[in-house]
């Protein structure tokens, strides 16, 4: 018996602790602020908290098409650099290939073989007379699609800060081209639209030079230090940007010139290698960009360049020599770092169209109303159930009730403990559980009544009642659990909260109804040395049936 009480007490303690403990990292609160703590410990869904939920789809067909169009241009340009003459280069979107027409070369005799040298990684190459077809390989296509989704995720992640949202959720749905965006507390739909559907702002700026000495101004750890050689003033046309070195985490400030190029000047960004075969980021600029960059790089040898995405410097490579429209950024990068940088630089242009499949904007007041009406309905529903159970089962009803109240505390405790999300349908599930939770006790009590009618002694009747009803309770609840499980599969959003609530409710109801109320009953039987009658009959039927 002691053991049983100890388990109940432990479960209760755990649930209460989970509910009222002060949130981590907030030193100002103690257990006395339990009201505030409960609010923070129960994770409210967007539909209760207010905010913006979006389900996005990245158009991967469009991503591949854009990639092909882009490649048609860059492949031609690169091959011409290598001594080929090419009449036209077109993308065949249907067949996922780039078709080069009228390919000749005075330098190379084996045209197909020579082109293969450069492109066999991603393309299968096939020469048909003067034409060469480069067909995008299956895994290369998957790569392009995958990158498009990753870039979109990255772009949203890096720009969502401007909304001032505390805990933004931007998740790619595993293995798909869908992205779920949850921005609690956000209210500006227009801006969120822009963030998800417009490209990032990519700027190429040159590190500023001191006008007096014509020497580059080196980065400094504070703004004051940075501006010291300039007399503490930001010169006109220049701007200060914070720079965080990704590897060391060191923070500094750089003074940059005005915008030299934007994303529209970048024709292609791809993982490449440097002379030593180390991973590097390859960049191809368009004609205009190439021209600008050639002059600028010539004037800035040994100066630094900064690539700024949405106001943040993502890379600041040094310029070693005059550069043309094709160059690489190297710096003992790992393969992952290169991939990461490619994604970042590319997010300045839209890799593919993003469609908003589903959009929910929940205002600030809806949730509060729903919670207060949910609490009201819970209390009122509970009251009805209480009155009925007490009248119908009397003392046994009291035990059922204690079990029910424990049940509600356990459910909320588990909800807080596993960090599940409470949604509006979840509130409905909670109220529903109040009604359903007594079911297991009802099953038991009806069994006990039957045993008593058959003349079994009260003590045995209780034992038999709990034992035989157990199988039924399990069977009935497992099937309900199955139904709840399929609700989980219905997709993202509030319904998930309902399903989880139902599942938690089932587990907790079984425990409280089978174990806890049994314990209370046992305690009562133990206290009474002689027990000839059991108070389990409806009030309108007298003390016996």
């Amino acid at each position: 018996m002691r053991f049983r009480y100890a388990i109940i007490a432990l479960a209760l303690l755990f649930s209460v602790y989970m509910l009222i403990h002060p949130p981590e990292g907030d030193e100002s609160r103690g257990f006395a602020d339990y009201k505030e703590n409960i609010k923070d410990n129960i994770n409210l869904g967007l539909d209760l908290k207010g905010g913006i939920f979006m389900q996005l789809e990245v158009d991967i067909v469009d991503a591949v098409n854009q990639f092909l169009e882009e490649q048609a241009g860059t492949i031609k340009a690169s091959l011409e650099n290598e001594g080929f003459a090419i009449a036209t280069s077109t993308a065949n979107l249907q067949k996922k290939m780039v078709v080069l027409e009228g390919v000749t070369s005075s330098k190379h005799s084996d045209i197909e073989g020579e082109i293969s040298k450069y492109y066999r990684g991603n393309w299968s190459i096939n020469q048909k007379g003067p034409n060469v077809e480069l067909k995008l390989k299956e895994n290369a296509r998957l790569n392009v699609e995958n990158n498009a989704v990753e870039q979109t995720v990255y772009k949203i992640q890096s720009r969502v800060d401007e909304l001032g949202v505390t805990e933004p959720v931007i998740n790619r749905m595993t293995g798909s081209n869908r992205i779920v965006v949850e921005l609690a507390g956000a209210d500006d739909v227009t801006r969120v639209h822009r963030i998800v559907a417009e490209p990032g702002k990519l700027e190429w700026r040159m590190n500023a030079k001191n006008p007096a000495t014509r020497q580059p101004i080196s980065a400094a750890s504070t703004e004051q230090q940075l501006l010291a050689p300039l007399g503490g003033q930001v010169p006109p046309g220049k701007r200060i940007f914070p720079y965080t070195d990704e590897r060391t985490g060191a923070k500094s400030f750089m003074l940059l010139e005005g915008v030299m190029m934007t994303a529209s000047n970048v024709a292609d960004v791809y993982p490449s290698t440097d002379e030593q075969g180390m991973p590097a980021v390859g960049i191809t600029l368009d004609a205009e960009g190439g021209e600008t960059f050639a002059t600028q790089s010539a004037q800035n040898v040994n100066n630094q360049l900064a690539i700024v995405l949405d106001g943040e410097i993502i890379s600041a490579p040094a310029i070693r020599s005059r550069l043309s429209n094709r160059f690489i950024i190297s710096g003992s990068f790992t393969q992952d770092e290169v991939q990461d940088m490619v994604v970042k630089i590319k997010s300045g242009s839209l890799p593919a169209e993003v469609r908003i499949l589903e959009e929910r904007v929940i205002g600030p007041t809806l949730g509060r109303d729903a919670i207060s009406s949910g609490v009201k309905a819970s209390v009122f529903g509970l009251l009805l159930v209480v009155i009925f159970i007490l009248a119908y089962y009397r003392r046994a009803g009291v035990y059922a009730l204690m079990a029910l109240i424990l049940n509600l505390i356990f459910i909320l405790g588990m909800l807080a403990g596993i960090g599940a999300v409470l949604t509006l349908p979840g509130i409905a599930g909670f109220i529903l559980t109040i009604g359903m939770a007594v079911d297991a006790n009802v099953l038991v009590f009806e069994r006990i009544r039957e045993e008593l009618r058959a003349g079994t002694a009260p003590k045995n009747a209780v034992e038999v009642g709990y034992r035989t009803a157990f199988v039924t309770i399990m069977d009935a609840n497992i099937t309900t659990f199955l139904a709840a499980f399929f609700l989980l599969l219905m997709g993202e959003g509030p319904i998930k909260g309902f399903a989880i609530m139902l599942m938690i409710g089932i587990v907790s109801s079984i425990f409280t109804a089978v174990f806890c109320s049994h314990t209370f009953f046992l305690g009562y039987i133990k206290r009474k040395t002689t027990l000839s009658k059991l108070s389990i009959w409806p009030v309108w039927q007298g003390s016996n049936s």
Partner: protein
Amino acid sequence: MKHYDFLAKRKVCGFLSIVLVILSIAYIATIGIKFNVDFEGGTKMTVAFEDPDLSIQTVREAVEKYEPKATIVEEQAEGVSRFSLKIKKPDVEAGNENEASLTRRRNLETAFAGITSGDAELISKLKAVEPGVLASKFQTENIYGLVDKDEVIAQTYRTLAGNVVSNAATAATLKDLAAASDQANADKLETAITNVIYPALNHITTDAFGAALAKYDPLKRGNNGSYKDIAAQMDATRSANHDFIKSFDVLDFSSTVAAGEDAGVLKTFIQDNFVLSTYRIVSNETFSPSIAAELLSNAESAIFMSLLCILIYVAIRFDGNYAVASVVALAHDVVISLGVFAVAGTLWGVELSNPVVAAFLTIVGYSLNDTIVVFDRIRDNRSDMKNPDLVKLTNTSINQTLSRTLVTSLTTFFVVAVIYWGSNNATLEDFAFPLLIGIIVGTYSSIFVASPVFLYMTERKVLQKLGKILGGIYRTVTLANKGEDKSRSKA
């Protein structure tokens, strides 16, 4: 304890059930179930107005100018008037959905703003503002998302701010003002002014309000200062006034600000940088047609898969006869509930949505709960008795569990009824309505459908016969194949 002969009436009940199921299917097939926007595609919006006496006619007229397809229903609300709008399957060009949904929202906002005070509040603010102040706000927020040399950007916004302030003197609506100030970007400018430059206190979420204050830091709390306390105070004031702040005068931060901070400065800042607005969009949901179709098929397969799994579970725990009987009872419940739901749709406009499907799956779970309890007792009693009269035994089992069935149904019905009649929340009501139907139908079916079907299956040995037939087919087919093989091998 009374003993009822439930099975005596099983033919009548069976007939009744079959008729109801056929009627339901016929009704659904011909007239159909009404779908909500999440299963059909479109926009659903709930909007509240400060004026509690606003008539639905006024709202309808204002909305029809922009969205003739919208259907509007008035909702119950205390101290304010609240309406829900639905625009199903809007005419949108493919590929233009994102922009269309924004435009729709913007149009509706314009319509709502026009209903009461119009844009007067906003325009009077723009008239009074210093152009330089406005320009720097434009630039800080970079409302057009410009990418250019900094001085070029600054110049663009200076010109724009000058235009806006000078046009504010004559413009009647924000739309006109935006068009007059920047023809090419009128739409962008219009939304930027309402959402970014002068957000409405009655629309803004608490978090967004706190973030906006933190950005401009009127109390000089420094980089790490949070304005959560101020935001919470604003929200408390708002909710104490039926969620509408009717005048800046009701805002009182004197007890919220820390020592040494000036509540007056804060209030002036809020007054200068926010408007009040006489309406609020409570919620707004948009579903593209493709996701709607997918949600619907997900819902269908969830119901189907759960039925299948339950069939398998019951077949393992009990046997095939029980399994078939319980699934028949379940299908019966779902079909009739859907039928009643469809009729309610015709009568009162109730629509099938995601929460409703969740409710139906719950019906599946709980109706089964009842059935399993009865079956469990039948199984128990069968193993106790040597020579059972199955009909009598089944009837006894139903009687033994009757009290429990009724008590559980009753308590569940209580709380669901409380949700339906007492919650005053559209989503919760949507959810409770099918549950109410389901509990009634489910209780009936566990007594009058599941057990009779079980009896029929067991007495007539339906499964054995079916098994024989299938076995026969199997044997014939394999024999025929073998024959073929033989004839082939001979040849």
